[in-house]
């Protein structure tokens, strides 16, 4: 070797150094060979991964349909004008040259600022021109644009959203006039019935994040939505389907070069609810009582007593789920959070109230079961000395007032006139309290019905352990008339009424009937959600019949509190209730109720209406129920599939 020859023969040190050097070179050479030749392929592959950006494409969200397949929530294509920045590079340059002061020496900062100005001017000019052309003026926010340019340059910037048909046509008339513009179609969630069943359907929130079992890493994400409340929230996983992935090759300036769809998104399942759209409409209309109109705060539930299907569930006031998709205006937000109106609150499930007199159904049933009541025996209600024409009862040293007049009462008359004294007297008889608590357990009062998880309250009902501690006869008296330590949601009351109507079967209220794949050709089977029985009361049917008959009398007989609910040709059994809302020992508000079922001979429906701050159950809620029954009768007469018939096929 040339070098070695020139080294003096005896210079061992230098020779050693030279050998060490040569060794070092060999190591590097071997290393480079290993990396660049031997494993080059592996590194090229990892390189390819890098120049490619992945984009998450959300799947089309499943529809929510009523039991007759009428859409409650569906998707509409929206036409958006999008601007691809990649195609504007030339325009950015030209604009920069135009606004750049001639011959001036610019610092880096000034130059950068000018460049931003140039880019923004180009984009906002195009936006303005297109806006004018489509008669939808739009100004693009400078900060938004900067962020978009810095972060997601490869994605188009959306400049006009939601074009109508005319605008689409106008846009299509002039292809290629403006650089970089494209018309994109994106599915948008729409609620064709606006606020109908809003509390059941729930709302969506913008959320582009990956769901479980999805690829977690994406460079960019297209806008996606996530259900947060209601059905949209509970069945979000099923509704949203599986997002797809497309890959974009990005050139060295970060702009898009080409696109390939790696995995197409799989649309979400359609949900078939037990709701009946027309009935729901009628219920919501009915709930606007003459007393309060649109200001009504209340709820109504219609159950199919034979299956537990929720045919309609309404809460007033309501809201429009679509509002949640965009940015909510401050005043709208304030209205949505009004401390009194609370439109977001589902009063049918999410709030609980003292049931008041409608709990007398339970009290009566318990007393009948314990044979504490002989239905024909007469009990004399004493007169209240301070309130002429009104009865009262003394429990211990306490006097409990009655709205019903004094005099002789049998079971039916007591229920018809809603006599507190009668039910308290019999409720205090031995064993009745125990039975009431047992029945409460069977009705699953104080427990959630599971219909809308996280949007439901359990309510309150005394249990066995409550009796051990500090329980006094006054508490029993309160319980007998649905006051004190008992509170329920309208839905719970509907389940209870349905069980009394159907002979003692307590159902899990069913809202979802079927989950079916979006593609009808799909091999995937629709997932039926059959009705589920939760409990059986195990009471004598004779006693149930007695309660039902008394309830029928409440609506049909002269002097019944539920007269206002009567519908000619339909035998309705009902019970009114007016519960007192007490705060610090004083009555501050009233909750009015009407719990009912029909037809009495062959019960099909349970209807429970609750209105906050109403006059009384009979005056405020019974008329609402009447309108609902009218709608039910009309629905019955109309041709086409009936809810009950369909449900029985399940």
């Amino acid at each position, binding site marked *: 070797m040339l070098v070695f020859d*020139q080294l003096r023969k005896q210079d061992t040190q230098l020779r050693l150094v030279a050998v060490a050097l040569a060794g070092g070179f060999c190591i590097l050479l071997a290393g480079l060979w290993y990396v660049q030749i031997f494993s080059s392929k592996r590194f090229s592959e990892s390189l390819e991964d890098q120049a490619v950006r992945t984009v998450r494409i959300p799947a089309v969200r499943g529809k929510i349909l009523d039991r007759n397949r009428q859409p409650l929530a569906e998707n509409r294509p929206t036409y958006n004008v999008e601007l691809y920045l990649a195609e504007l590079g030339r325009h950015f340059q030209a604009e920069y040259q135009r606004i750049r002061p001639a011959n001036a020496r610019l610092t880096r900062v000034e130059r950068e600022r000018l460049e931003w100005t140039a880019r923004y001017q180009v984009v906002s000019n195009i936006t303005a021109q297109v806006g004018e052309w489509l008669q939808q003026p739009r100004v693009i926010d400078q900060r938004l644009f900067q962020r978009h340019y810095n972060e997601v340059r490869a994605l188009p910037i959306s400049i006009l959203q939601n074009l109508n048909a005319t605008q689409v046509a106008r846009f299509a008339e002039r292809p290629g006039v403006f650089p970089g513009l494209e018309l994109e179609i994106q599915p948008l969630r729409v609620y064709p019935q606006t606020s109908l069943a809003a509390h059941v359907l729930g709302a969506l929130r913008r959320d582009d994040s990956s769901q479980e079992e999805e690829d977690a890493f994406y460079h960019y994400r297209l806008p996606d939505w996530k259900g947060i409340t209601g059905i949209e929230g509970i069945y979000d996983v099923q509704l949203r389907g599986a997002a797809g992935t497309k890959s974009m090759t990005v050139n060295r*300036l970060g702009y898009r070069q080409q696109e390939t769809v790696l995995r197409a998104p799989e649309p979400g399942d359609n949900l078939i609810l037990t709701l009946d759209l027309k009935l729901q409409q009628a219920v919501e209309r009915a709930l606007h009582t003459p007393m309060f109109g649109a200001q009504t705060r209340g709820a109504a539930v219609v159950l199919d007593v034979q299956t537990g299907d929720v045919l309609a569930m309404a809460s007033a006031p309501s809201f429009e789920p679509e509002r949640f998709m965009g940015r909510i205006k401050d005043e709208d937000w304030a209205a949505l959070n009004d401390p009194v109106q609370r439109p977001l609150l589902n009063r049918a499930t999410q709030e609980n109230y003292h049931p008041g007199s409608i709990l007398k159904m339970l009290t009566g049933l318990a007393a009948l079961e314990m044979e504490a009541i002989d239905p024909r025996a007469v009990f004399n209600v004493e007169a209240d000395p301070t309130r002429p024409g009104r009865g009262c009862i003394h429990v211990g040293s306490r006097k409990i007032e009655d709205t019903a007049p004094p005099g002789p009462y049998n079971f039916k008359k007591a229920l018809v006139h809603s006599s507190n004294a009668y039910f308290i007297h019999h409720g205090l008889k031995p064993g009745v309290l125990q039975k009431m608590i047992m029945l409460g357990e069977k009705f699953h009062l104080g427990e959630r019905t599971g219909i809308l998880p996280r949007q439901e309250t359990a309510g309150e009902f005394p249990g066995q352990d409550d009796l051990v501690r500090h329980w006094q006869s006054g508490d029993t008296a309160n319980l007998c008339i649905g006051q004190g330590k008992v509170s329920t949601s309208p839905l719970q009351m509907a389940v209870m009424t349905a069980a009394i109507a159907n002979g003692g079967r307590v159902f899990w209220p069913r809202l979802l009937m079927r989950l079916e794949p979006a593609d009808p050709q799909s091999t995937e089977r629709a997932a039926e959600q059959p009705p589920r029985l939760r409990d059986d009361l195990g009471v004598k049917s004779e006693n149930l019949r007695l309660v039902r008959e008394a309830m029928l009398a409440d609506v049909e007989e002269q002097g019944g509190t539920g007269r206002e609910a009567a519908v000619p040709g339909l035998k309705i059994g009902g019970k009114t209730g007016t519960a007192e809302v007490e705060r610090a020992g004083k009555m501050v508000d009233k909750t009015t109720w009407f719990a009912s079922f029909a037809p009495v001979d062959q019960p099909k429906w349970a209807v429970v209406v609750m209105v906050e701050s109403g006059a009384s159950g009979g005056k405020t809620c019974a008329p609402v129920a009447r309108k609902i029954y009218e709608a039910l009768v009309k629905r019955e007469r109309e041709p086409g599939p009936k809810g009950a018939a369909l449900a029985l096929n399940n």
Partner: protein
Amino acid sequence: MLARPNIDEKPARIDWVLVCALLGLMVLGAMFIHSARYATESGAGVPWFKQYHFKQIIYYAMGLGAMAAMCVIPYQTLVRWSYVAYWGSILLLVLVLIPHIGAMRFGARRWIDLGVFQLQPSEIAKIAFILALGNFLARPLDELKLPVIFWRALGMLGLPFAFIFVEPDLGSALVLIPTGFVMMFVAGIPANYLRRFLGGAALIVVLILVDVLFAPPNWRFKLEDYQRRRLLVYFGMDAKHFAPPDATAAELQKARIQERNDSYNVEQALISVGSGGLTGKGWRQGTQNVLGYLPRAVAHNDFIFSVLAEESGFVGSVVVLSLYAVVLFAGIRIAGQARDRLGKMMAAGVVTLLFSHMFINIGMNIRLMPVTGVPLPLLSYGGTSVICTLVAAGLLQNIYLHRRSY
């Protein structure tokens, strides 16, 4: 070992092979610094005279001037000033540690900001150290056998080493060790001294490494956090070693992210080099560098080799290695031809210094070595490094020029 009497009358000439190889490296350096900075600079519209490759060319010119200047005075005369240079560089190394004088960048004080120029005292110290140690060891061979000389030589090595180590600049400190020892070895310090010392030192280093990597936290040798992490990354240790033993899940997660960030540069450098393949992607076509996967802050200096290897492939890498081989073996040849032991020692020192830089830097690009901020001579962007490398090359030329004069 006295040189033969010189009867050759031919005028002394500089070593043109060495110069050509250096020029070749400079051309590649300018080209690939341009490539590394291209995406950033063309995007921002930096004027040509402010672009990095142009500045690097200026440094090359200044370095070539310095190289020529180095040849004017015979090295025997030059080394009379070596102690001045040595203590001067030590002074600079002290100064750089003082806040307000030394500029803090990336958590280290390595630069003195002179406005137009960022002076890196450690680079100067390397040259000064070679001169001073050469001067010190250029004494009769018998004296070199005395332990006290060996210990004093070690002291000369230890002083700049310690100052550079605390900057902290582990890489620059480390290259002093082979340089010093090769010089001592070539000078004729008994090999068993060196063997024993190096054996002992190696043992200590291994112990420290084991301590850093495996010991419980309060038993650990104090290293800068980032240095420890780099070592862990190099040895492919799991993230849990980054976190304290009683770390919560969140802390562990943070450590994992930290690990990913730490290994990021190395991973990306490896992908760059590896994806170059046999012939590379072509000048300025490297996607790794242009798209910014290879971090832009380091692409033009510590990781310039990745850019070069990606764009010119294995062929380019071999060309670079060959150019360095020409430079270094020319240096060895010059050492062999040197008139005296002083010249031989210094030439060997320069060769070892350049080789260590090259080996550590390229090695770190292909994950043979842990990441340390050692520039690749002449290819990495940086004024001080370029000028000092060329000054060192000038020293080689000086030794070559005066190989026959007395």
